[in-house]
Each structure stands twice: as structure tokens, then as C-alpha cells.
């Protein structure tokens, strides 16, 4: 068995994809966006409540897609809850660097450990878009997705 495959589809990932955390609808969302990958038809909707302190007070997602995109969305929501937007941006930058196999120096040791399961993606450049879909969607929700 191909080691890089085992690393990509390791237990953490499969578990997140099968039992996604924060899956569902946020009725009181302040921000919301839909992400779509036209190549594969995968979709994800990210909803969040942004507190007055610029912190992600609550966050949920919905969608369907491959194991990577679902696991990534699940992990993301897990990690973003409670962070300020600045912290979130830094985390996202680090995540993108990590999955592309670049230096992800901006990640704290703790975050790095949490995201470690995703580092196998660097061997699969064609799947990086699956992993970043939810993150870009979060970004869009914050930037342009204010619910009015």
C-alpha cells in the first residue's frame, strides 16, 4: 500500500469526513457564503456569528464533497471557533502553506499539531483545491457575506 495514500486518508481525516463537526445550519448567522468547485461540483456553505470583539462566536458548515473537502471543513470549523479574524487569517495562511508543502512558520505548535493530519496533501497537488475550498469560503463569508 502506498504510504502517501495512507497518510492522506489517515484515520483523523476519515473520521472528520464521516462525522463532521459543526455540521448544520446556523439560524442566527451574521455572515454566510457558498463555496463551489466547478471542476467537481463540490459545494460548501459556511455560516458564522461574528461577535463585536471580532471573534468567531459560532460557526457551522453544510455541503457535500469528497473526504478531503469535508474533513477540511470540519477541522476548520473546529479550529476557528473563538478566534479573532486576525488569528483566523493567520491560521488560514498557515493552512494553505501546509497543504502545499510550503513553509507554514506562521502556525503555532499547537495549531500545527491539529492540522498535521492535512499535511499529507502536499503529495497530492491536484487535491489542494478540495482542502482549501472551505477556508476560502470562510474568507468570502467574512469579506462579502454579511447577512442583512
Amino acid at each position, binding site marked *: *500500500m502506498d504510504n*502517501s*495514500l495512507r497518510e492522506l486518508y489517515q484515520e483523523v481525516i*476519515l473520521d472528520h469526513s464521516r462525522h463532521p463537526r459543526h455540521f448544520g445550519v446556523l439560524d442566527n448567522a451574521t455572515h454566510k457564503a457558498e463555496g463551489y468547485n466547478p471542476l*467537481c*461540483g463540490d459545494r460548501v456553505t459556511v455560516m458564522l456569528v461574528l461577535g463585536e470583539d471580532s471573534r468567531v462566536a459560532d460557526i457551522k458548515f453544510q455541503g457535500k*464533497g469528497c*473526504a478531503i473537502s469535508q474533513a477540511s471543513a470540519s477541522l476548520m470549523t473546529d479550529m476557528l471557533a473563538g478566534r479573532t479574524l486576525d488569528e483566523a487569517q493567520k491560521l488560514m495562511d498557515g493552512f494553505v502553506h501546509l497543504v502545499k508543502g510550503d513553509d507554514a512558520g506562521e502556525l503555532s505548535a499547537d495549531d500545527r499539531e491539529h492540522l498535521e493530519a492535512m499535511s499529507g496533501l502536499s503529495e*497530492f497537488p491536484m487535491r489542494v483545491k*478540495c482542502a482549501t475550498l472551505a477556508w476560502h469560503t470562510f474568507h468570502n463569508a467574512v469579506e462579502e457575506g454579511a447577512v442583512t
Partner: protein
Amino acid sequence: MTAQGKITASFDAAAARADFPILSRLVHGKKLVYLDSGASAQKPRQVLDAMSEFAGTDYANVHRGVHYLSGAATDAYEAARRTVQKFLGAAREDEIIFTKGGTEAINLVSYSFLAPKIQPGDEILLSVMEHHSNIVPWHFLRERQGAVLKWVDVRDDGSLDLEALDAAINSRTKLVAITHMSNVLGTVTPLKDIVARAHAKGVPVLADGCQGAVHELVDVQALDIDFYALTGHKLYGPTGIGALYARRAHLKAMRPFNGGGEMIREVTRDIVTYADAPARFEAGTPPIIETVGLAAALDYLSGFDRAAVKAHEQDLYAYARSKIGELGWARVIGDAPGKGAILSFEAEGMHAHDLATILDREGVAVRAGHHCAQVLMERFGVGSTTRASFGLYNSRADVDVFIAGLRKAREILG
């Protein structure tokens, strides 16, 4: 089985396979098993060599020069047109227009034939299994001119409902645009019957033959069809080249599409007059070297007993179909009688992309996604499928590797 075995025997797939340099390469250290010919076929040495050789000995721009090379290139270019004419059974060579691909061939019909006629409310009839390239050009006429797109459904097995199609044609219908073979379901449509029904109501028919021309024998005169589009890269030929068959009677009334050199008769400051077809629709320097490659590809394909090639592909499909059935966790989409060698399926609990990634590590190239057929995906309630499509160079051994890869995927993801 004996009968089938006999037919297959007259086509030597292993020998043909040796013509394709890429098929001897390794992918991730594994032998390449290429099951993505539906997206694009690989190219035999004969095609690559014909192009290099032509470019290295007889190349110049066509039509324009009186010098030797220009004549040689023009001869090769026009000979390629006759090769396509013969391949499609067209009555005249000036009914063949070279395009950059199948997509452009269909757009040409939309821009040059249909657009000038469309009034708001006019209808264009499509099937739900069309490729985006046979949807979006017609959508333009909806978006820009108020045409209405009407959809003919397929049955659950993926076969076309001919009666429904017939019933949907009315006095507002301006064109039936339908695939010859679905690139997802493998369904082969009864073009002759479709044309008969449409013509009975005075409606012209365009066939998207991008897949059909590869696997079926085409005779545009016997079909009595108005337009037939094909593309080189799926026919074991080069990229950047396709062709449109258009009935001469239509060509005369069609307005130009691209404007430029070679498609004119005369240009002054105040007036421009146009050349006759096919030149009228071939503005600018055409894909000259690619037409030579396309002709080499058609010659290559026609050098085989086409029925035997088809029997070989059908055998591979039947074998794969039965093996995938044995797995018990794959739902095949498209089981129409007489369908071509394209196998699309959904795997329980496994997304197509994950499957394709795992197969790739085994050297197996399949397609995962919506296959540029989102309307069809919606019809079958799926976001994406995994698709294995067979070419003349594939073997049962390829199928075995593919099935073993699916089992491995199930182990990892299941």
C-alpha cells in the same frame, strides 16, 4: 460468446497498443492504465510522425502562395478534408469545415446558422444528457435572443425517450441538438429515427458526434442529418482540430462566424464580400499541421476493421460491467441497450475524487466529476461520478487493475 470471440479476433488490440508511445510509461511507478479516452484519447506514433514529418518537409501556409511548399501544404490540407468527408460519408468535400474542435463546430452552427433566424420564443430541443458544449452555445441564444431551451429526458437506464422527443417538437422548434453518444452514460442515440421525426416536422438536426464518431460508423447521407460535429483529440488525433459536416443547402445561407483572411471574396474600404463554403467558415490560417494529423488518425482508425474494434471495446465494457457489479457497492449510471464502452458509477460512501486519487496511485487514469454534463448529474441526483472510458488500446488486464484498485479504495475509504 464464441461469436463475439470470433469477431474480436480480427482486431489485435495488443499490437495496436504498441503504437501508442505513452502507454508504455509508468505512473507513480505503476504501469499506466489509461481509462480516460472519453476525455481525450492518446495518440499513436503514426499520427505524431505524420505531423512532424509534414512540418519537416512540406509545410507552408495554405491557399495563398504559388510556390511549391504552399502547393504541397494546400494539397495535404485538402486531402485531409476528403479524408473527413469519406469518414463521415458526406456527398461533397465542401460540406466539411475544419474547426478547432468539437466545441467550436457546434458554436459555428449556433452563430452562423441558428442565431440569424432566432426570434423570441423560438425553441431549441436538447436532451438532458448533452455535454456543456452542446448546451451553452444554445443558451447564448436564450440569453441574447430570447430562445427557449426545451429538454428531452432520458429513461432511468439512460436511453433516450424517442416518443417524448417527437412530442416535444412543434412549430416553434428551430433545431434539435442531440448527442450521438453520451460521454457519461455511453448511450447511443437513434439518430436516423430522430432525424426522420424532426424532418417530418421540418426541423433540422445537429448531432454532437464528439464521442459517437469514435465508436460508431457514421454515414451522414444515410442518416440524412443536417449537421454533425466531431473532434480530433478523441479520435486518436491531435488537439486543436475538429470538423463540422454541414449539408450544402444550409451552408449557402449561413453567415460568417470568424472574419479574416481566406474567408473573403473581396475587401474594400466600404464593402466586404465573402467566399463560398468551406472557405467562408475558415477565417485566418487554419490548423494546417493538425488537419494532417487528423487525417492520419482517421486513416489509422479506418485501417482496422471498425466492427472488430467496436466488438473489442464492447467486450471490455461487458467485462468491466460484470466485475463492477460483483463488487456490490457500485451503482452504474447508464445501462441503455446498445450503449458504448463508457462506464460511469457512484460508489457507496466514496466520493469520485477520492476514488480517482487512489486509482491514480495504482496507475489507473479515470475521470471523476460532472464530466461537463451537470444537467445530467442533476437528472440522476448525483454531484459527480467516476468514469472509466475505453479505447481501442485497452485490455481485460487493464480492467483487472482497475477493479483491484477499486477494492483497494474500498479498503482505505470504506
